[in-house]
């Protein structure tokens, strides 16, 4: 089994987090979260998380393309000027590249359910071997997405309850995450250069 070392996992999670913060910030600048309905708010966060995940994964698999419409990038999906940055991509979590087999369709009943849950799995030229590789890649990155979302929620929750002691504990565990969140909410004027500088600095400390 290929071990996902922390050296390969961290870049994707950082890329995902950075994309997520960019998109969330952009969305809230056009409509503040508290002004949205419950349903719209949740959809906004979820779609931001999916776009951030797909953009961070990049072009080494097919499932990100199924999530992002063609010619959608983090830059394009952000209307604010600040968001037009280089999309943060990283190497895939599982090492190595794989060549896609030429279009031989091998349809088997037992893979039909899998095709439905993996984005892009129901493409006509997705043979079984490619589907299995896509599923593996997708599962690994889904796990990372869940992980990051959970930690982000913890940080925001700690901050919103104004419990500095709890915040300090989270900070000690994950300074990079907290730095990014805090700066994101600090105010728009100081955002731009501070964000990059602080983010990169925290990332180096990880």
């Amino acid at each position: 089994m290929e071990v996902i070392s922390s050296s390969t996992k961290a870049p994707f999670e950082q890329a995902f987090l950075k994309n997520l913060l960019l998109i969330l910030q952009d969305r809230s600048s056009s409509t503040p979260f508290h002004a949205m309905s419950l349903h719209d708010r949740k959809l906004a966060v979820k779609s931001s998380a999916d776009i951030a995940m797909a953009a961070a994964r990049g072009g080494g698999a097919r499932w990100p393309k199924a999530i992002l419409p063609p010619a959608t990038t983090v830059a394009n999906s952000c209307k604010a000027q600040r968001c037009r940055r280089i999309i943060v991509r990283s190497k895939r979590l599982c090492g190595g590249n794989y060549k896609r087999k030429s279009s031989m369709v091998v349809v088997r009943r037992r893979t039909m359910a899998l095709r439905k849950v993996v984005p892009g799995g129901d493409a006509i030229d997705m043979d079984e071997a490619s589907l299995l590789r896509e599923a593996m890649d997708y599962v690994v990155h889904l796990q990372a997405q869940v992980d990051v979302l959970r930690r982000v929620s913890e940080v925001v929750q700690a901050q919103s309850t104004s419990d500095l002691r709890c915040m300090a504990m989270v900070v000690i565990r994950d300074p990079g995450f907290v730095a990014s969140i805090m700066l994101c909410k600090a105010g728009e004027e100081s955002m731009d250069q501070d964000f990059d500088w602080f983010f990169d600095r925290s990332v180096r400390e990880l």
Partner: protein
Amino acid sequence: MSSRRSRSRQSGSSRITDEQISDLVSKLQDLLPEARLRSNDRVPSSRVLQETCNYIRSLHREVDDLSERLSELLASSDMSSAQAAIIRSLLM
């Protein structure tokens, strides 16, 4: 290489062997959390595929719940720049 018969008789690089499939399936099995499959037992590949579907669906649900929780927190929290300064001083 042993002479395993491939399912597909196409020429070129499109031949997908049973061995490749079962190798991919076992790698997939290793990704699933231990509670879902005992990884030292021989598990039929159809079971692995089924558990993978279940696992992906449960991960989707988790993302859903976390998105809801995060969206609630973002709506109600009110981050002032003073708090940001305090955190910055803790980190620096």
